[in-house]
């Protein structure tokens, strides 16, 4: 079943955990929740496939869990606060999981955070239709220009001052 398209699906690299995903991922997340108990963690580690049989997961969800595909889990209705419990069961720090999701090594990821994190510039929108926030007006306009949205950028630049002050 195709997902209902939402305005926030335009945010790149982001799976918003909305009602539809929550419904789809209910059992995936409840599996993760079960890992809060030590006896369950042990049972899972002893035989992952057998343990997963306790939960009515879809084959895709099951596969993503076994392969530790963290982005895929989010796509299939997993929520990060739940899937992080799977990472913890494997003995991984949160940054380890974050590195996997961002396709970098943990070291690279930690360095990026120390250097101020991932910039929002260029990361606001897939479609380029993003509203410039208060931040980075100049860069935003430049980026829009570079993306061939010149027509729009001029307008949004003059507008953005007003819009920015309105929205805070």
């Amino acid at each position: 079943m195709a997902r209902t398209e939402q305005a926030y699906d335009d945010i790149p690299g982001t799976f918003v955990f909305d009602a539809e995903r929550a419904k789809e991922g209910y059992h995936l997340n409840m599996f993760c929740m079960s890992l809060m108990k030590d006896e369950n963690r042990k049972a899972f580690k002893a035989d992952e496939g057998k343990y997963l049989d306790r939960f009515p997961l879809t084959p895709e969800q099951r596969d993503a869990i076994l392969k530790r595909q963290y982005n895929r889990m989010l796509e299939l209705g997993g929520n990060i606060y739940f899937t992080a419990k799977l990472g913890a069961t494997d003995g991984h720090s949160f940054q380890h999981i974050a590195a996997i999701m961002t396709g970098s090594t943990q070291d690279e990821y930690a360095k990026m955070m120390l250097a101020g994190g991932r910039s929002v510039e260029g990361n606001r929108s897939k479609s380029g239709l993003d509203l410039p926030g208060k931040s980075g007006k100049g860069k935003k306009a430049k980026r829009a220009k570079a993306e061939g949205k010149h027509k729009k950028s001029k307008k949004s630049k003059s507008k953005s001052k007003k819009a920015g002050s309105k929205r805070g």
Partner: protein
Amino acid sequence: MARIIAGVASSHVPAIGAAIDNKKTEEPYWKRVFSGFEKSKEWMAETKPDVAIVVYNDHASAFSMEIIPTFALGCAAEFPPADEGWGPRPVPVVKGHPALASHIAQSVILDEFDLTIVNKMEVDHGLTVPMNLVFGSPQKWPCPVIPLAVNVVMYPPPTGHRCFMLGRALRKAVESYPEDLRVVVFGTGGMSHQISGPRAGLINSKFDKAFLDNLTKDPKKLTKIPHLEYMREAGAEGIEMVMWLIMRGALDDKIDEVYRFYTVPASNTAVGHIILENRRKAGKHGKLKHAAARAKLDVRRG
């Protein structure tokens, strides 16, 4: 009469709790974070609230997918620390204030905020980390705490405007409580961060700083930020900042910003912290006024 004297906002990054629990606070990475809260601890020791209302979110600890309350008020006598997968944090059990909490529930529900009442709940790092940051790590917490858990895990969280108005209703509730109590309200979570998906690691300091500025001078503007903008600008999990607006709504329009701290990063998150005091001081609390003035002198930074 009880009244709200101040608001405190702070990030609640779990790694901060881990740094405290594993005694890493003196390491340079963590010292940068903790040094920003030294003045806050002094301020808190001076202010000595009778009760703290802590607005926070649960991270799949007390609430799984089975029950997802938008606003849940802790009315229990105590709230043990939750086991978040590596054993409960070694922090004292949080003592509640059932009498004031029940009074608040009754007042705000009649004020059309349909809270969930929770009489049994464990609390996770979302609540205990900010408490450590401003109370330190005492044998027991210095005052009773009323937890107010907000759903920011499943979209949509309550709107910023709704949060602000709940703060207003909280203030009214506190002010109609007969006992003479001085209450501090905490807003926790944020600031910009995204911990999920390929865009994880997003930080937007400009957004954060503007948010801090407006929290003081124009909070109503912040109540108009749509969820889409929080997620786009401040990261999918940056939407937690709506919880700060409950704290701000509970304060008066006229407040003094007595302290602010901001640093990037703590683990995956921008850490923001602010202390706001209500300007109006009742005569009989002249001592507080004096303390506040002094705290301001000591603490105020650019």
